[in-house]
């Protein structure tokens, strides 16, 4: 019964707040209800009213009426604190599985200052900010990315209980934001590559990725680098986050082939991801072969992105 009611309530809320890129909050979107403190406040007022009645005390009546009126007026204030706020999503960057996906929310004040406005996925975990009149504020909201593919931001709650904290005004916003989550880069040997490396030793290619003998020096951390290679000592001294760089591949074009790899699908994709990143970093041209999809040999960031996208969306998600 209650579950059904809750479902209907959510459904009704969803109907009132359809996904839109930019939403200007007004009375159609803002819900307002006393919160638990507000309920306790009303209860206290009732007790005070009882005292006023039983003691026939005019001043007690007056205080009850004053606080009751403050409560009613606070409804307007709390509503006003959200009304006229323009909420929009900002295009967000891609992340790798396991990283925190960052959704950027833009809060724009159209009329007046908005105080202690909270935004978040769940009412329990909200970020609170003030937005001055005519100002714009960009808010970063994190969401853990657990699977590759499109990570669609859930509906976002925007709330405020300013000024008294007795009433909560809230709205659900769905700016339709989504983030592409790439597979988690997994360090490992590529058999096809290794095989070719062995075959073509005379061409001057060296083995890579395994030994510490090939230590090349330090370079700045980039997403996809193995955490095991992080130079923690340097970082703990307050320096930049560095990774130990081991090997470098030079020479001819490479083909990253899904079929040639072992392991399950996700592991294969993760390893491919690692190699896509690594080869791009080393400005090496490569091609990518996925079942039913082939990306021709190229190099550079756009190529890398195309490959990663293909990996992320392979098979329509895991």
């Amino acid at each position, binding site marked *: 019964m209650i579950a059904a009611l809750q479902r209907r309530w959510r459904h009704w809320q969803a109907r009132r707040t359809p996904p839109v890129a930019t939403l200007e909050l007004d009375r159609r979107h803002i819900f307002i209800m006393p919160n638990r403190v507000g309920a306790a406040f009303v209860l206290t007022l009732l007790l005070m009213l009882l005292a006023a009645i039983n003691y026939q*005390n005019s001043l007690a009546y007056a205080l009850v009426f004053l606080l009751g009126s403050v409560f009613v007026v606070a409804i307007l204030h709390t509503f006003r604190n959200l009304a006229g706020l323009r909420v929009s999503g900002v295009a967000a960057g891609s992340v790798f599985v396991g990283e925190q996906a960052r959704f950027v929310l833009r809060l*724009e004040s159209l009329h007046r200052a908005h105080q202690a406005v909270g935004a978040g996925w769940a009412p329990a975990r909200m970020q609170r900010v003030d937005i001055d009149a005519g100002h*714009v504020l960009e808010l970063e909201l994190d969401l853990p990315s657990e699977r590759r593919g499109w990570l669609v931001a859930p509906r976002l709650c925007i709330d405020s209980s*300013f000024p008294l904290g007795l009433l909560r005004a809230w709205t659900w916003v769905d700016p339709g934001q989504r983030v592409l989550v790439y597979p988690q880069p997994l360090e490992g040997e590529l058999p096809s590559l290794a095989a070719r490396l062995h075959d073509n030793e005379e061409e001057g290619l060296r083995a890579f990725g395994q030994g510490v003998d090939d230590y090349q020096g330090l370079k700045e951390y980039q997403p996809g680098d193995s955490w095991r290679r992080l130079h923690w000592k340097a970082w703990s001294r307050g320096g930049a986050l560095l990774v130990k760089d081991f090997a470098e591949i030079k020479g001819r074009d490479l083909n990253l082939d899904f079929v040639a790899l072992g392991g399950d699908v996700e592991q294969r994709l993760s390893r491919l991801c690692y190699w896509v990143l690594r080869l791009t970093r080393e400005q090496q041209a490569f091609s990518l072969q996925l079942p039913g999809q082939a990306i021709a040999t190229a190099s550079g960031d756009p190529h890398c992105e195309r490959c990663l996208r293909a990996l992320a969306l392979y098979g329509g998600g895991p």
Partner: protein
Amino acid sequence: MNPLAIPRVSLGWLLLAQALVMVPFWFELPLWLGALWLGCTVWRVQMFRMRAAVPGKVFKALMLLLTAAAVYLSSGRLLGLETAAALLVATFILKLLEMHSQRDARVLILLGFFCVVVAYLFDDSLPWALYSVLPVVALLTALIGLQQARVVARPLATLRVAAALLLQALPLMLLLFVFFPRLPPLWSLPAAQNQAQSGLSDDMSAADITELGQDPAVAFRVSFDTPLPPRSALYWRALTLDRYDGRRWSQAPSSSLRPVTAWQPQGPEWRYRVIQEPSGRPWMVALDVAQAPARDVRQSGDFALRRLRPISQVLGYSLSSWPQVPREPQALSDAQRRQALQLPASGDPRSRAWALALKAQYPQPQAMVQALLAHFHDQDYHYTLRPVALGSDAVDDFLFNSRRGFCAHFAGAMTYVLRAAGIPARVVAGYQGGELNTAGQFITVRQYDAHAWVEYWQPDVGWRSVDPTFAVAPQRIEVGLAQALAADEDFLADSPFSPLRYRNLAWLNDLRLGWDNLNYGWQRWVLGYQAEQQGAFLLAWFKGLAVYVLPVGGVLIMLVLALWLLKPWQRRIEPGLRHFQQFERLLARHGMRREPGEGPQAFADRAAAALPGQAEAIVRFAQAFVAQRYGGRGQSPVELAQHLSQLRTGLSRLPRIKTRE
């Protein structure tokens, strides 16, 4: 920092609010509560500064038990308003030590509001009512201070938010106050004990009224709808005392329970409204025979008005009196007669003998009373607030030795003699006279106007009032107590600073009467605004429409407030445009004004030329603005704001140029 912790400024507001809430209780509750409050406050501050440990569970439980025990021990009662209030205040104080999260702070604030109401039950005079605005504002500010907004860091800005809320709530509050229906009490609750200390009690020894003679507290105030009766007619009856045990006059239980015999209004009528101060006793005051005004008021057999519950709050009631109505002209019942002639079995032999001698001389009760009055008048009797102590035969001692006494002595002695002579008689306790406030046209009756006089009964005539004090000191009745006392007697010796002592200073007296007038208005229109007065007021002004005023008025007030707060007609300002307006204002302070029709780019170029030091910042802002507004490029307003703040810091180093608009 934990977002649910209590910020410093908010803690400050909380402590201030608590201190303000506590102030009225210093006068009502045991003093050790004040010490407890100070201790807890200091501890809480030290806890915030990390200088003191957070009290453990066992310690807190122990504190609670100890405090509860101390409250019980110091009040000596388990039930009662004082005990309940002391417990509430103690909880309010101890909660301070247990206040860690915002939730605790909110509980504390709610307790604070309740404490303000409880303080009203002890004292609802005008000064305390005005004072109570302070704790209410502080509590509201503390509530706002718990918000995680930047404004909260500035105490004055928070205070302004609270004040604005209160002011905006005021119209609705007034509407509710006037129109919200007043209900009769749902159940009876213990009243404040301290208020029972002053005023008449239901037994009277002469010393009691002498004590009242030193008390300048107001007993009640009266305004007349009909012309003001002469001062000598203003005998405010409260209760009759018909039992004498040799020392004290008291009321026989049977006479207060006996229902009144039927009577019909006749003769002239006096209509008046009484605002009675809380006395902790059930009786009301009335002139002669008055009609019981409300359902919960009963007229007992002696024609006194008695409320079912004690008067623990200021009580207003309208009365009509008919001074010419005869009281019980038919023969008295045996029980009544016995009670009205009751005397101790023995004692005061001289008085009894004298009474019999008088009776022989004056067989008519009327003549006998006249003879007694003449005796008091002609012989060497004195009216004084400082009577000498009387011996075991008090009446004898007074009549034949000391001959110095207060109204109670004269009334008691006269009743005694009348009874000894076989004339049914009783002592009436009440008030006499009062001070006319000419500005407000009302009479203030104070405790020192307490008076005692005599009623005696004759067949066919009924009960008649007679005042022996009038025979001794007619000024007491005609002018008042202060004038009636001998020159060497110090009026209000116990209250040296009472303005009543300085009536001869004209300006001080005017001030005092003005203040009295204000208090009367407060009691009559605010404190006395209960069911009866509300009904009369609403009927007089709104007739049958009163029920509609509350909903319609409420909706109207909210509508106006909503329009005023939300300003839906206000053109909304694009963020970029707002920045440009700020940019213009900034430059205007340095003498640069945009000409009508001058474009932003041209204006910026001109300004840059005029303020070469800031040329770079000006041009940068203008370019960003133009790019955003006209270039269609999605320049973020954040960037505009940055440019603007750079320009502002640059310009702040330059001197301002004052220009007139």
